């Protein structure tokens, strides 16, 4: 086993939201052999999710947390997965993600992004949080970046907000979610002993 694989095996990452960001980020981490994922989402899969989320047509109607667990285990059955079909709040986040060293913010709504970032910064300051911000539309590859603010990392273009004309779509959401996974990987290799 290679050194990076040894290190990944002992890490637990929380995935807060199993939509475009969360499903793709979780799959990338599973493929490289992360030890454990704690995934959470209250939603069910609808057809419009399939333009970016790591689900299949025959999974429409299923709970996202359970379907994502199933998909990850088909890719890498060695990953431990705890799936929570729950709406995350500032009250339950510290409990659900207690054993995680790193939390991936993978919500859709700005209010929810703010809620989890502020919850981690105030209630769980020893953990890292990697957020996705600005992923609407297409193109502008060179505007996508990562900013660090202490234990908070933000991946995305930081400016493109979703609207009916500028939906979140597979290419850009895929880039940002995989940047989040790459940042998680980097934190594991360089920041966690």
């Amino acid at each position, binding site marked *: 086993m290679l050194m990076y694989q040894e290190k990944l095996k002992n890490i637990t990452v929380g995935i807060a939201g199993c939509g475009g960001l969360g499903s793709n980020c979780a799959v990338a981490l599973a493929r490289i052999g992360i030890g454990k994922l704690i995934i959470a989402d209250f939603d069910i899969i609808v057809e419009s999710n399939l333009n970016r989320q790591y689900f299949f047509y025959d999974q429409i109607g299923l709970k996202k947390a359970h379907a994502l667990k199933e998909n990850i285990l088909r890719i890498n059955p060695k990953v431990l997965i705890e799936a929570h079909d729950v709406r995350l709040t500032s009250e339950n986040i510290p409990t659900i993600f207690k054993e995680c060293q790193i939390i991936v913010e993978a919500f859709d709504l700005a209010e929810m992004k703010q809620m989890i970032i502020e919850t981690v910064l105030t209630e769980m300051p020893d953990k890292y949080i990697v957020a996705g911000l600005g992923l609407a539309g297409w193109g502008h590859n060179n505007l996508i970046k990562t900013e660090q603010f202490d234990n908070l990392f933000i991946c995305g273009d930081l400016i493109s907000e*979703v609207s009916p004309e500028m939906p979140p779509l597979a290419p850009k959401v895929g880039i940002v979610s995989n940047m989040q996974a790459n940042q998680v990987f980097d934190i594991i290799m360089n920041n966690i002993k």
Partner: protein
Amino acid sequence: MKITLNNREEVFEKDEMTVIELLEYKKFTFKIITVKVNGTFIKKDMYEKTIIKEGDNVAAIHLITGG
């Protein structure tokens, strides 16, 4: 004063500013924003009381929908 704002150096004429003054000056009047000063998260009700001065490291992150 010279401060770091969102990882970039910026110079202001004033020697001190509150968080709310800084946000207004920079026209960061977004509804959903998270502010950190020197690594510490600043609650919204502390924006008027928190003073930013020379050398401070400020993050003002505008949160937008999409995921």
